[in-house]
């Protein structure tokens, strides 16, 4: 009964994001735990409490990701592992997935992997699908409720939010799931957890520890640069007219001309 929850530190969603003259992304230096991951971490802790499971929290990235890992420990995760290697710098989602999958395999006895719904910094969830594929496990995405989980019988039943409604799905374990907002009310760290987290040295697993070679860290896609969004130009026009009817008629005419109607 071992659950792995994957997290990442991301720029604060309230931070002002801009691009400098050299095409470098400036997102403020303040990082926060991916807000989606807060639900995944809380769900993992709730499952831990209900099933006496062990929870490992994992992040791929340089030292600044320790903050998200320590946050996870402070909420109640049992151990944290950071996966990083200089060769992973600038990784694409597939490289990320390979690293996560290799770490899960190294942990050995994990039967449930949990992700927050997406990474808000790159607005993508591809890494979740790719991780499941690399592990060869079922993927249950957009989970709004875990209806049943039986570690002994190796089964899980979840409710998924799909475009047309909800879908109830059962799967064998091991499996990978991604969770939605609303699956729970995110837990806050406890002072006991904070004290424990602050004393924990987080181990770092590099490529060789994961049994990966340099080729595995070779991405297929690379970011070549960023550009500012084009400035939105707009103007306000006050429509004059003798009466309300007159003004409305003129407005409708204009909207037709602009092909809005």
């Amino acid at each position, binding site marked *: 009964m071992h659950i792995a929850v994957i997290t990442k530190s991301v720029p604060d969603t309230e931070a002002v994001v801009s691009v400098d003259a050299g095409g470098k992304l400036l997102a403020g230096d303040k990082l926060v735990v991916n807000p989606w991951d807060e639900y995944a971490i809380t769900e993992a802790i709730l499952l831990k409490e209900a099933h006496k499971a062990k929870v490992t929290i994992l992040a791929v990235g340089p030292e600044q990701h320790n*903050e998200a890992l*320590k*946050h996870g420990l*402070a909420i109640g995760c049992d151990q944290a592992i950071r996966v990083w290697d200089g060769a992973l710098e600038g990784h694409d989602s597939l490289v990320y997935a390979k690293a996560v999958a290799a770490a899960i395999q190294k942990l050995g006895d994990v039967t449930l992997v949990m992700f927050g719904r997406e990474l808000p910094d790159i607005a993508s969830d591809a890494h979740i699908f790719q991780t499941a594929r690399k592990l060869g496990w079922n993927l249950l995405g957009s989970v709004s409720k875990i209806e049943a989980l039986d570690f002994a019988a190796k089964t899980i039943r979840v409710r998924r939010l799909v475009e047309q409604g909800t879908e109830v799905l059962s799967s064998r374990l091991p499996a990978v799931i991604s969770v939605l907002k609303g699956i729970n009310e995110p837990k*806050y*760290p*406890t*002072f006991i957890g*904070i*004290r424990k*987290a*602050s*004393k924990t040295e987080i181990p770092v697993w590099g490529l060789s520890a994961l049994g990966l070679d340099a080729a595995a860290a070779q991405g297929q896609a690379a970011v070549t640069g960023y550009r500012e969004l084009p400035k939105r130009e707009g103007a306000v026009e006050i429509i004059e007219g003798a009466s309300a009817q007159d003004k409305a008629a003129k407005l409708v005419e204009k909207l037709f001309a602009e092909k809005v109607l």
Partner: protein
Amino acid sequence: MDFKLTDEQRLFQTAVRSFCEREIKPYAAEVDETGRLRREALAKMPDLGLVGLQVPEDYGGANFDSISSALAMEELGRACGSTGLSLEAHNELCCMPIVRWGTEDQKGRFLPRLTSGEVLGSLALTEPDSGSDLMGTQTRAVKDGGEWVINGAKVWITNASLAPVIVTLCKTEKDAGSRSFSLILIETDRAGVTIAPPLPKMGTHGSPAHMLTFSDVRVPLDNLLGQEGRGLYMVLETLDSGRIAVGALCVGLAQAAFEEAVRYSTERRAFGKTLADHQAIQFKLADMATQIEAGRLLVYRAAWAKDQGEPYSKLASMAKLFTSEACERAAFEALQIHGGYGYSREFPLERIYRDQRMMSIGEGTSEINRMVIARRLLEEAGA
């Protein structure tokens, strides 16, 4: 010298901030309107240690150092002045004297309840006829058999209606000068304790302050806290430590005002540019930020001295004096930057401005703190 917080302090600060942003700040206007603290938030506080900041873990507290406590007070003040004030009074004025001077029995009787998140504690010093001048305390406690019999009135007692117990300064000796006073633990459900409805006041509406009367209230002799006759000295020590927390609360209130000012001045336009593009407004922001930073450092400095076991009374008074006045200036300028909207109840500045006003009055007025600072520095100068 190292100005970095420890890992534990930083993680705690982040956790308290996100707690306050979700559980307290969005309700601050409602707390002010209704005059009631948010009980749901209070109930969630024990896990984070907010209702037992420096209470030992055996009694349900978190046993934090003074710096961590100050970090928590700043975040609470940044979110809601009322909640901050009530938590300050609870932690510093009620829990701390029991932690410092309580017997094992007293700690066991009172602290687990006080750290439960269901109640808040009080300290009762001020009386209708004496505030700053604690030697003027008239509330009498006389021994009668195995009991103290207490008669008198107190005023401005924060949290009294939420408190299971009130640490009360009483006159226990007639003419023993500064040794005439003792602290007595008075449970609020004792016969003869009357707690009047909350006093109407300018700000911190969610933090109830009450007039109390004691008429022939009987408590066992072992409700005496610490030594008989040492009450005044214990109170002064309690206030020294409390002033660090009030200082932190002021930094939080000032920070909140500052953040609102930055937000508004970068959005609102006047004369073809944002307010923040006008140098006169930039200077206001620069002054606020400078004063906040200076105040925060003074608070940390006093808290650090206390944690090191060094004398900190002068530093605590300096921190409280400086931050309470800096906080008023910050609230004034932030409100000014908001123009007419600053005066509107629809914006938070109006509330912050009212909430901060008592900070230069409670736990030692600015005048009293200047007296403390002067007395200490003249002592140091050998004068």
